[in-house]
């Protein structure tokens, strides 16, 4: 396989790490043609409140399930939120609606927010929610080591992909670097 510029192969081991290359000019102009409806709403009014509402709703739901202790309830709330936000911000790529001919097909939502700029208010907020939720849940699980480890791994999973370091970084397990 020939090396096609941007996507450079870091290693040829089981773990493949590469960076999503910059899109060609034509694709960039398609991205710029219309506002990105998929990512812009995080800056909209009410988009921040919904995180607290959802977390509260999750907590209440887990509380009313019989036989669930406070510790388990907090841990479940924490990991549900983390998994949900991971899928939404870091797993799914592209735009669910068809309006720009797939110009964002290679980028996940976190990378689409604010056109990939780092440390913007929305990104700071979205990073602070899982951290605060983690601190709260460790506190309310009374610093039990097992719960702590579970919660900590969950929070790492959503914080690492949010770092500027991970911007456009892709990690593949047992799979080659995509050709195109």
């Amino acid at each position, binding site marked *: 396989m020939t090396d096609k510029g941007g996507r450079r192969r870091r290693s040829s081991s089981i773990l493949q790490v590469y960076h999503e290359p910059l899109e060609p000019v034509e694709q960039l102009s398609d991205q710029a043609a219309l506002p990105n409806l998929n990512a812009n709403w995080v800056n909209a009014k009410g988009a921040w409140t919904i995180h607290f509402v959802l977390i509260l709703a999750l907590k209440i739901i887990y509380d009313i399930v019989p036989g669930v202790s406070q510790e388990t309830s907090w841990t479940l709330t924490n990991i549900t939120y983390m998994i949900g936000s991971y899928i939404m911000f870091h797993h799914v790529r592209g735009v669910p609606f068809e309006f720009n001919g797939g110009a964002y097909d290679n980028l996940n939502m976190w990378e689409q927010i604010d056109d990939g*700029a780092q440390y913007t208010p929305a990104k700071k907020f979205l990073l602070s929610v899982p*951290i605060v939720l983690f*601190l709260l849940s460790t506190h309310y699980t009374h610093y039990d080591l097992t719960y702590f480890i579970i919660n900590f791994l969950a929070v790492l999973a959503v914080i690492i992909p949010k770092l500027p370091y991970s911007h456009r970084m892709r990690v593949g397990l047992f799979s080659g670097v995509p050709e195109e």
Partner: protein
Amino acid sequence: MELQELQTHLTEWLNEAIAAFQKVPGSAVLIRYVRSSYQNDPVRSAIELVLVIFFIRYLMAPAYSTSKQNFIKLTDDEIDELVDEWTPEPLVPNMTVLEEMESEKLPIIVGATGPKSKLANGRTVTNLASYNFYNLNANEQIKEKAIQTLRTYGVGPCGPPQFYGTQDVHMRAEADIANYIGTEGCIVYAQAFSTISSVIPAFCKRGDIIVADRAVNYSIRRGLEISRSNIRWYAHNDLDDLERVMAKVVAEQARTKKLTRRFLVTEALFETTGEMNDLPRLIELKEKYKFRIMLDETWSFGVLGRTGRGLTEAQNVDPTQVDMIVGSLAGPLCAGGGFCAGPKDVVEHQRLTAASYTFSAALPAMLAIIASESLHVIQENPEATLGVCRENIRLMRAQLDPKSDWVICTSAPENPILLLVLKPQVVEARRLTAEDQERLLQEVADECLANNILVTRLKGAPITTHMGLKDNVYTATPALKVCVTSGLSKKETEKAGIAIRHAITKVMTKKGNNKLGVPTA
């Protein structure tokens, strides 16, 4: 002494600091939190502390953009200088020598066009340069209908189809075409040229794969370019090469576990060569490798098959097996606009996603009626239209292809557009460049015109020079275009054929043109 004093001072400061901290609202909570969270577990506390420190650092960091700022800061003087230096390209590029030569001699038709047309210089010529294959242009029944429609509906619908543009006649035309070809549905576009350039991007998006013939026409090329899909080319009309390309695509996608839409785009009768495609084989391949097929029937609709239904009828293929049949209503039907026929879902999808359907005014009602009427006329009496035309094609071909020493006809035997290219031996022996060939063929066309026969050349330049798809190097062979019509009698057709053959011989044996054996540097 000194040490003791320092110690007391330190303790005092510490106490003061603690007192000050305790005065801060919420400090008690923080202390309680830190106390309860420590819990004799320094490692865990350290991890939490690191997390908090990282968090605070993240919050304090200034925002920056990751997209490349690829502009240079210029001073005002530099900007002025650049503006002064800039000379705009002409809006219309200067004509080449060939274009100049051609435009000077451009014949102008006065009055109605037909098999016998009157030119601006007063002469009446035999018109073999029009797609009026069945002379429906002169059909009184169609004319009468057109005038009636014009009086009731006016000239144009003045709106896109989705915005008050659709009239009953459009829906009727769509139903008529669908019935005629034998598909579930049909959608009528306002321009034939932009039909396929709009159908392709309506279905193919970035990341999808389109396999296309190298020789496809300009309109398809535009469509492929707009679609942003990955284009794979196969050698012109070489279906073995097509199979190779398709197999490669399938193997690649199986390996990378990528699942995209896959399309095959080709023409039924090729615009640049006149050759016919092998549809049964195409269908077999598309079923085997799971592709969808878009067939451009622009030049074959109303031409091929017993009743003119196109390639599907000519090669006995069920039209429902072709995913999209794109055709033109502008050529032999003497109407205007284009259409795409296929399953209902395919058709309905285009009503909102096909750019040229959504964003351009609907077809004038008159043209929709003419399309319906023309189809009716052809269907009702295929012998009088298709039959007569085919006989004329046979006669014309007989005068040109085997008889002429200089040219061969690349078109399929049923194709009323005869494309005559110079024999490869001739081109090789005389070392003719593409430009030389164009010039010679233009001379032939001029010579024909002097003998009152109007023919034209294949205008292949836009295809050859089209830069949008850089990976496709295809050069259309220069050709003379002779369009046969049923409006001429057998005798007239034969006579025109002889005249064209003589004109070719005359031009090719002219002294200045005979470069035989003369090596060119």
